[in-house]
């Protein structure tokens, strides 16, 4: 098979990707018309930089949704991660790197607990993660209502620094997406995630370890949520117990817009990346038009509904 044919086939499999990419291109065009300052390298780099936390949580959410679940605890895990990291370091700069490792491990562990409970009890993950998110949120707010702790100044580089002229945070996001994409395509685990998401019963009867797959995706989602928390600590220098609130539902939007099917089995990480960029550029363009922030919510909601109805339109009949 030639490379072109393969590319064409890939396009045929993921029409969603084409649609979202066109939408993104159109939006960039609109942005350029709206403001002179929009279509500048500086602005694009800023958009990428700010897209990172949404990108992290959306990458994890993609895995969970592909597996047939949903994770409503990503915001809570991210908030807990900021408070834990900034609070534990609290000006003792030498602790930064070990605590960073610890907080990422703990975030993955929190996700793993979601996965274990979901796999073992067969309670719907919506309920499990809603519950665990609430527990975590409550604990964090019991600990502190105010932004707390202090991270070293050099750690700002994760959010604001540049490498090869590009934002480090955006590079980290892209690396995350590439890793997830590679895992989905090239490893047995990735294949099994798609199998379980498409038909868990058939997967089980094929001898696939459905429980282990479930545990992995939630642990991965926990890890990425923790990474988002780390980004916020880097950007703000403190831990903020409320930083995760808008993140949970926001993490689902790019996944759906990117063509991953709610319910699992079909979709991919590339669509999510374009979805993240679409949402980020949209917010950026609307900032330049000086309309209310709430308009962003309206437009985002419309895009979600429009995207999903386009994608599902062709595949309603079996």
């Amino acid at each position: 098979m030639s490379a072109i044919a393969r590319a064409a086939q890939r396009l045929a499999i993921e029409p969603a990707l084409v649609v979202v990419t066109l939408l993104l291109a159109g939006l960039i065009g609109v942005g350029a018309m709206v403001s002179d300052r929009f279509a500048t390298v500086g602005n694009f780099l800023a958009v990428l930089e700010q897209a990172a936390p949404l990108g992290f949580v959306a990458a994890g959410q993609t895995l969970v949704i592909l597996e047939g679940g949903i994770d409503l605890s990503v915001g809570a895990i991210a908030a807990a991660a900021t408070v834990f990291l900034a609070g534990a370091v609290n000006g003792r700069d030498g602790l930064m790197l070990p605590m960073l490792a610890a907080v990422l491990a703990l975030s993955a562990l929190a996700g793993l607990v979601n996965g274990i409970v979901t796999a073992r009890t067969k309670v719907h993950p919506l309920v499990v993660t809603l519950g665990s998110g609430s527990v975590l949120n409550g604990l964090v707010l019991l600990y502190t209502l105010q932004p707390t702790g202090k991270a070293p100044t050099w750690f700002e580089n994760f959010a604001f620094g540049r490498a090869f002229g590009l934002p480090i945070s955006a590079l980290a996001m892209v690396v995350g997406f590439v890793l997830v994409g590679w895992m989905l395509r090239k490893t047995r685990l990735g294949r099994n995630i798609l199998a379980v998401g498409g038909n868990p019963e058939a997967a089980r009867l094929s001898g696939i370890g459905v429980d282990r797959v479930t545990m992995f995706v939630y642990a991965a989602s926990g890890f990425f949520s923790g990474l988002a928390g780390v980004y916020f600590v880097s950007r703000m220098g403190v831990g903020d117990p409320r930083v995760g609130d808008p993140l949970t539902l926001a993490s689902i939007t790019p996944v759906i817009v990117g063509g991953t099917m709610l319910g699992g089995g079909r979709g991919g990480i590339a669509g999510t990346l374009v979805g993240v960029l679409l949402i980020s550029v949209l917010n950026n363009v609307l900032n330049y038009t000086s309309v209310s922030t709430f308009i962003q919510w309206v437009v985002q909601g419309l895009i979600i509904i429009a995207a999903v109805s386009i994608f599902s339109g062709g595949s309603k009949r079996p």
Partner: protein
Amino acid sequence: MSASFAESRAVIALQGISKYFPGVKSLDRVNFEAKAGEVHALLGENGAGKSTLIKTIAGAYTPDEGTIVFNGKERVWSSPGEAKKAGIHVIYQELLLFSELSVAENIFVGDAPRGRFGFVDHGAMVSGAKAILDRLGHRLDPRAKVGSLSVADQQMVEIAKALTRDTKLLVLDEPTAVISGREADLLFERMKTLRESGVCVIYISHRLEEIFRVCDRVTVLKDGRSVGTRDIKSIDRDTLVTMMVGRSLADIFPKKRAQVADSTPLLSVRDLQMPPRVRGVSFDLHAGEILGLAGLVGAGRSEVAHAIFGSMAKQSGTITLCGAAHNAPTPRASIDAGLGFLTEDRKGEGLLMLLDAAANISAPTLREFTRFGLLNRPAEVTSAADEIARFRIAIPGPTAGVRALSGGNQQKVLFARWTRACHRVLILDEPTRGVDVGAKVEIYSMIHDLAAAGLGVLVISSELPEIIGLCSRVIVMREGVLTGELSGDAVDDREIMRLATKNLAAADARDAA
């Protein structure tokens, strides 16, 4: 038998009905007619178009061509509700009842007698329900909760529902697939009552015996076409089979394998208990043998298979697989020990619809194509291509999806999956369900080849011709218990049906309670 229908008018007449689905012509210029006061059988293999035809009559599908004449008037149904209002009532296999409501409430659902102020008149509803049940000649407490009734009684509630309206055409979609022989006898009596009262009954089944017992005429469908309508008195069994499958039974099945001499069994099951569905099942399966497991739907056959494979928990009993204990099976352990299980529910439990053929075939054996967690996709695709050639699966290639394939080709994909994975024992649950005759013949010869290669094959099937044509030894289950074993020339449909519906003391006691 009522002779009056011969001169009575047609209640329903279909002329040149065609219905297309993407890639399939499900009905092809079908003519069909049924009269008042007759029981008219609609006979055909799975996939012959019976369901599509019924849904067209009932307004669930709009035909692409042709006309529907109901009660002398040409009709175009805009919805199933409209057909229902006109007097067409269809009873599907999955009953549409509210299990938490009473018999009377179900009979009058959406249409309850009202008293003053528009409140439901409960007394009138109960006495109305009683009157209708009396008309059917069926004794049933109108106040009983439907969920507590047997499936057979629930069918009666459905029929009673039909009688609250002026139903002129009643369609029964394979009602006996889910009830026992004795219950079926009762159902046939009720159908005769309905016939006497001038209702036209269309009876769908693929069980020939039943058709000879209750029906006046039969229309045979094959591959979406009507093969013809015959008076039941003017036709015999063999002719009907030939009409239905387009060839005689002798051409469909390969020559039976000789019975296997007693060797050490590959699979040995002793006193398997999974109450209440399976109670004390024991049997042996030998290398090179095709063993049939017959019985009615719900007799516990699939549960036995699930317990052996490890996808359902058993309570007790021992399983020996290839000489080793296999008492705490999991699907993975079974597969690793060489045991495969092709389930009856191809879409729900078999295929990974969103993945390609290669991924479907390699699902249980993906480890063979993995090193350090990394997939060797080219090797997977190459191997799948071999299987596709071997099983002659009609598909563009190993990387094509499985969703659009025909039932027969989907089934062959699953055959490829399990024969690739398992080299000792294969359990096949309804291996030809929803598969056309051509693919059936191929599947039968595959099963034959597998046994010839030394596998032990356990075939669970509700199709008696399939069991009889394939298996040199048959065990029969009824209500969770093995009721007998037949081998050699003793394998015939009467004996199997007798064992499958054999009255058990325990069952009788329970029914009486």
